[in-house]
């Protein structure tokens, strides 16, 4: 772990943030993400998982705490600056531009480097063949699973070093969930470090190198995917007595 500490790509330390003035959703959360690592953030609803990712990505003001990327302070920088530095983000629900075509969505991915488009689009379409077939189609005519692919594809267009995924499996049928996790693994295998917030704890931990378990806006547990997967405390955090009743 200490080795990772030194060469960590993305570090969040003691982050406090919230939506309503005076009410902190995150109370001193922290995590780190090493190069080429796939890290999952799990926890019960309302634990602040999505909020943490939004705060890291500059979409929500951090009240205190620090975020560094490749050793540089990036706390509260606007999202578009973070994109140019090499961080990609796929939001949970509204993850595509519905009135734009698939190709235009991808184009917006390389908004900052339009010349890269043709080179990157080939890579992304190789990863998500469905996008190549639907290039001219409007995003709002796609299914939830396809939208998730498009969202990830768009975020990958800038060739980010870090990809932040906010509940990529939310609202998808099991078949699409499998596909999404498969793709996440592939993306990570291609060298992109991924920080993934997930609802589906088991599937998430199965593919993650490490995981963080969030509870009430602070870190509850951390460990490798397999450790957490078999940790009764984690299951209890999710299911409470439901787990004990088992």
């Amino acid at each position, binding site marked *: 772990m200490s080795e990772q500490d030194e060469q960590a790509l993305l570090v969040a330390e003691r982050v406090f943030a919230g939506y*309503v003035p*005076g*009410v902190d959703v995150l109370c001193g959360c922290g995590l780190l993400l090493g190069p080429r690592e796939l890290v999952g953030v799990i926890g*019960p*609803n*309302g634990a602040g998982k999505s909020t943490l990712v939004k705060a890291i990505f500059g979409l929500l003001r951090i009240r205190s705490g620090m975020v560094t990327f490749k050793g540089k302070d990036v706390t509260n920088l606007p999202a578009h600056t973070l994109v140019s530095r090499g961080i990609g983000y796929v939001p949970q629900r509204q993850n595509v531009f*519905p009135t734009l075509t698939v190709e235009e969505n991808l184009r917006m991915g390389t908004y900052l480097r339009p010349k890269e488009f043709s080179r990157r689009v080939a890579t992304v379409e190789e990863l998500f063949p469905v996008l190549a077939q639907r290039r001219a189609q409007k995003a*709002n*005519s*796609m*299914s*939830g699973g396809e939208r998730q692919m498009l969202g990830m594809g768009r975020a990958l267009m800038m060739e980010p070093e870090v990809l932040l995924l906010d*509940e990529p*499996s*939310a*609202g998808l*049928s*099991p078949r699409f*969930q*499998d596909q999404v*996790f*498969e793709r996440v693994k592939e993306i990570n295998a291609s060298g992109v470090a991924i920080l993934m917030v997930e*609802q*589906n*704890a*088991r*599937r*998430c*931990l*199965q*593919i*993650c*190198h490490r995981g963080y378990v969030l509870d009430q806006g602070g870190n509850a547990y951390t460990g*490798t*995917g*397999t450790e957490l997967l078999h940790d009764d405390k984690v*299951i209890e955090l*999710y*299911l*409470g*007595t*439901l*787990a004990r*009743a*088992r």
Partner: protein
Amino acid sequence: MRAELAKLSFEPGVAKPDPLLVVDGVTRAFGGLVAVHVEHLEIERGAITALIGPNGAGKSTLFNVVSGFDRADSGSWTFDGAPVTGRSAHRVARRGLVRTFQLTKTLSRLSVLENMLLAANGQRGERLGLALLPPVWLRQEREIKRRADELLDRFRLSRMRDEYAGTLSGGQRKLLEMARALMVRPTMVMLDEPMAGVNPALTQSLLSHITDLRDEGMTVCFVEHDMDVVMGISDWVVCMAEGEVVAEGPPHAVAKNPAVIDAYLGKQHDEPGTEPDHE
């Protein structure tokens, strides 16, 4: 109550002895995504029913449809024997089905007390003509105030009585919203995540409020993620996943139901390709 429910078969859509709310074939889709597809669901009168399920399971959407805040693409539902399918929200509420919201809807620039007073039904002073004649409604207003103060006291909000509701914390808003719903004197309350954001100290008192309501004869249906809460107070648990009801039963039975575990933690996949690989 629990004893009667325990005699039923624990499967989705099972008929209850005395259902208050009956939902039939309700579907609601957003774009291509089917958010709710409920074949049949009955909510037992006088019981506490918990609606559980992971994010995006369609719990809130079902709440919205039934309470008239969203339209269904198909299906019908009856409340207390009367068809309320497609009725506007205020008519549903007047029939005695009152809901709260996941994101609280407090009336910021009204005092906490005024929030409570608003909710009382059958107020003479709410009619434009009579509003101008305080003697007509003042006595009723005093009675309503008394009731509101009782509830505020019960929900430990008396201290904030005359503050703007907008100054309350998230947890206090939840309490206010629940107390406010009770001012309507509903037959059934639908609570959308009543515990979210409420601090642990208040959670216990909130829980006892909910059981008190049931003991007073009210029907309670609530969406909740905290399983301790659900297991502790529910008479019946309905689990939704991907828009459908996947399991129903008393808490202990649902806790053992593999469909519920799968819904929450995600289905277990043990095919070789998905083993975690570590450096």
